[in-house]
């Protein structure tokens, strides 16, 4: 089967990744079998990258063998699909602040050894820098007020030249009372100071009041 985007396959309106560890489900995702291959259907309601694909995302910057820094990896739902895409030769450095979430991720990382679970504060890259390396892709999904600043700081420190940085912005965690449109415009401006924005997608009904940006460092 041919991939629609690097490592990402399309089945009707659904997107899926070719499972690196067949027979093991990460969340209760649907499985499509084609001969010996198992494709794990990407649930747009449980993964913001999955939602972005459904909303028309064309470029992810992810490829087989890519190195990824994932800030806010949580329990590894989205990460499991990225893990499929980058494969055994790729690496995901997964930074998460919540001990509860990373407890689940540890189990995922046991079978998917390309995931490196790091319990640390994404706000302070100095604390985990010695365990990571320069990466091709930075992916961020953290619900923090200063998420754009955190994103810029990490991309500047860890992103290789020409690498891609993706961020899911949650308007409600920046200011609950402000109109999301206004917040997205304001965050976009912050990002544009350091990045060229390639894609700008709203996640629509999959994730209310969320925007998704794909950027390249200037």
């Amino acid at each position, binding site marked *: 089967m041919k991939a629609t985007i690097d490592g990402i396959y399309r089945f009707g309106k659904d997107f899926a990744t070719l499972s690196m560890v067949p027979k093991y489900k990460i969340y209760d995702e649907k499985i499509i079998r084609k001969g010996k291959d198992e494709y794990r259907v990407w649930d747009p309601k449980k993964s913001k990258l999955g939602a972005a694909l459904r909303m028309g995302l064309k470029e992810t910057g992810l490829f087989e063998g890519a190195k990824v820094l994932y800030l806010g990896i949580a329990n590894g739902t989205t990460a499991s699909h990225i893990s499929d895409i980058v494969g*055994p*030769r790729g*690496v995901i450095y997964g930074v998460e602040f919540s*001990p509860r979430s*990373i*407890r689940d991720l*540890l189990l995922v*990382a*046991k079978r998917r*050894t*390309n*995931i*490196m*679970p*790091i*319990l640390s504060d994404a706000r302070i*890259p*100095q*604390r985990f*820098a*010695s*365990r*990571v*390396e*320069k990466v091709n892709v930075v992916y961020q999904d953290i619900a923090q007020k200063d998420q754009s600043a955190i994103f810029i700081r990490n991309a500047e*420190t*860890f992103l*290789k030249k020409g690498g891609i940085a993706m961020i899911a912005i949650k308007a409600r965690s920046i200011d*609950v*009372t402000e109109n999301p449109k206004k917040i997205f415009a304001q965050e976009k401006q912050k990002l544009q100071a350091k990045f060229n924005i390639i894609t700008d997608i709203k996640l629509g009904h999959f994730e209310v009041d969320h925007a998704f940006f794909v950027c390249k460092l200037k």
Partner: protein
Amino acid sequence: MYTYISLAPIGLFAYDADGKQLASIIFKLDDAKGRFIDASGSELTEDDKGLIKKLGKKDDQIIFEIQKDGFGSEFPNISGETVRNNISKLAISTGFVKDAGQYYQYLNELNSEITRISIKAASTEDRLLIHAVSTIDELESTANTLAIRLKEWYGLYYPELLERVRSNEKLVSLIASNPKREDLSDDAGLSMGGDYSDEDVIALQNYAIIIDGMYRQIKDLEAYIDKKALMIMPNVTRIVSPTLASRLLAEVGSLEKIAKLPSSTLQVMGAEKALFRHIMGQGPSPKHGLIFQAPVINQAQKKQRGKRSRMLASTLSIAFRMDYFDKCLTGGDLLKEKFDKKIENIKG
């Protein structure tokens, strides 16, 4: 000229400002995890000392990438940048591993181990308290739901008892210990309830026993929470009851977080609906949230409550800080004394 040192999963590296490698210490794969974890701390390890000795430089000319006691630090520094650009190649060329696959296998184990250690450290006593508080809430609502069903069921057999015993908890405990109406009252023969067999009544009793167990469990948990709260929050519990202290803690999620909250947040916590209504510009600002449960506030005159809430919140936030950062017991007494005086003052 400064020398820049960085730590990597395979060892320590020193570079000069032009990006030339001056020296390195490469761990052995067998003991690398322990040496890396040690070197991540702020204390100088044998490996750090070994590298500095190799360099033969004065301490004030050495810049680390992480914080090290007595040394300067810069993040990111040229050493870290260079190493992070080629780490998998370096791991092979220095002989640390045979190939990239082996390096990433090691890195996965290293990161998993460090994460496991941190998770263990994060499993503190306050977490237990928080779960106990939430469990009580869930048990209470579940037990009451089940009790309503029991009432309807038992009402078929002996509705007069429901009239006499209003409290769910008491009723459940009565039915659980002996549901037979002739044992509960002399005039049971006059009951308008149906005449059911022993088997029917026992089925009902078994159900009541389970609900009764829940009510008992709530009592046990309450006692447990009080005891635990006194231990974990000795200062806060001088100011408010252990129950309220635990509720506040459960609302926030950890002692660390609550110790770092501004007292204004503590003051209105639990009144979020009113607070956001106010922020949106509709309605007055709430004076108090959960802390309203403290008698010093709910037993005060209405016009005093705002002032008292502010006072209580600020005192509590100091007390939470004492409990999190330093558990000195005398602090709480002094705080309580001052608080009482302040309350006395605003009375006049």
